């Protein structure tokens, strides 16, 4: 009988079953046993415990993660609907206030829509709601673009990203309009800039081929979209937290 191949030796070492005849041969063949012993010695030399981690490593991971997850809604399929509905209501409210402000006979005409952003009351309810909704939009967009940037060509299943883009696209238009209305042109401009990306992903159908994915990743990177989203997100987050000094910390992710 011929000797065991190197592949058979390796797989047997890692617990893959051998034919009875091969097992019998291995026991009786000195050369095969010698080959096995050499293989075992080589593999036994490879031990890599990795760096020593602090005892509270898991807590540190959670601490970093929690901050990011707080900006994320519950992992369900309906967050986008709630977000879009809230934004639509918000847009109606903005339109209503703007309409009131422009009525000639209004006894207390509001000029809110005409005020520069810097002159507005910092704790205005509408601003706070807008900030919260847009922060969420920006955060989700950032995560989607990060995920797209990290995709490798062999990851052909873009269904999750496509659905997310589709939903973000609906709310993106509303949030952009709200941002413009609320005097946040830099936010509106950024949402405007990412819209073609969302559109492309949302309409990607069965996925993107390698060159399309490369081109998309290049666009995201060359325009620094993830960085811009992070900056805006951080600014909005900071603005939002300054507004609620006495409110309890958010516990929802």
């Amino acid at each position, binding site marked *: 009988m011929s000797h065991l191949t190197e592949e058979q030796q390796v797989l047997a070492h*890692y617990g893959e079953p051998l034919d009875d005849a091969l097992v019998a041969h291995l026991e009786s063949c000195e050369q095969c046993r010698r080959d096995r012993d050499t293989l075992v010695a*080589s593999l036994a030399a490879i031990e890599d415990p990795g*760096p020593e*981690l602090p005892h509270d490593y898991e807590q540190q991971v959670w601490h970093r993660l929690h901050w990011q997850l707080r900006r994320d809604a519950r*992992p369900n399929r309906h967050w986008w609907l709630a977000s879009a509905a809230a934004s639509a209501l918000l847009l109606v409210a903005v339109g209503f206030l703007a309409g009131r402000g422009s009525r000639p006979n209004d006894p207390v005409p509001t000029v809110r829509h005409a005020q520069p952003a810097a002159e507005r009351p910092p704790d205005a309810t509408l601003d706070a709601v807008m900030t919260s909704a847009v922060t969420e939009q920006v955060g989700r967009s950032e995560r989607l673009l990060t995920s797209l940037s*990290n995709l490798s060509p062999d990851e052909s299943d873009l269904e999750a990203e496509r659905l997310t883009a589709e939903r973000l696209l609906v709310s993106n238009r509303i949030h952009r309009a709200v941002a413009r209305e609320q005097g946040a042109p830099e936010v509106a401009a950024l949402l405007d800039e990412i819209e073609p990306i969302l559109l492309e992903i949302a309409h990607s159908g069965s996925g993107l081929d390698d060159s399309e994915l490369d081109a998309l990743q290049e666009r995201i990177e060359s325009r620094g979209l993830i960085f811009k989203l992070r900056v805006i997100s951080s600014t909005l987050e900071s603005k939002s937290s300054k507004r609620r000094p006495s409110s309890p910390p958010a*516990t929802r992710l």
Partner: protein
Amino acid sequence: MDDDAVTIDRVLGGDSDAFRFLVERHGRAVFRLAYRLTRSQQDADDVVQETFLRAYRHLPSFDARSSFSTWLFRIATNSACDLMRRSMRHRTEELDEMSEPVVSDGDPAMRIGFRAALERGMERLTGSERTAFVLRHFEGMSIDEISAVLGTETSATKQAVFRAVRKLRQVLDPLVRAT
């Protein structure tokens, strides 16, 4: 229902803070895997973060009939492979930060030799070979489990493990024979 399944039900039911238990239960193992794949502590930290973020976002799509840790390892492996593909920086300057592969011989020169040889060997492996080898050799996963993580056929996984071992032996065997 195991602990993971109970926790996942809680998270999907609205108790999002329960996700913490999944992080605490699997964080260290995910780091270990990420480190062995990327050979960099900083990259491994990034992979851990990315893995749990992706897992959280895609938790509704997790099929509870399979093992959560296998699913998580698959995400971690994909994240690490993405990162490795994009990371073109040279690793030699990180050699000093690496933990040393432990060999029975206590000779420091020999240990340094093994360390460098292992690093050279790992650099020769393709992404799937390195992943398959790490999961089999270090993590003790079965060929079937590795196939599930890689999304490959069993025969392809066996081939990947074998090719990885063959390449590693080309650099390690001379040192083993010298000890």
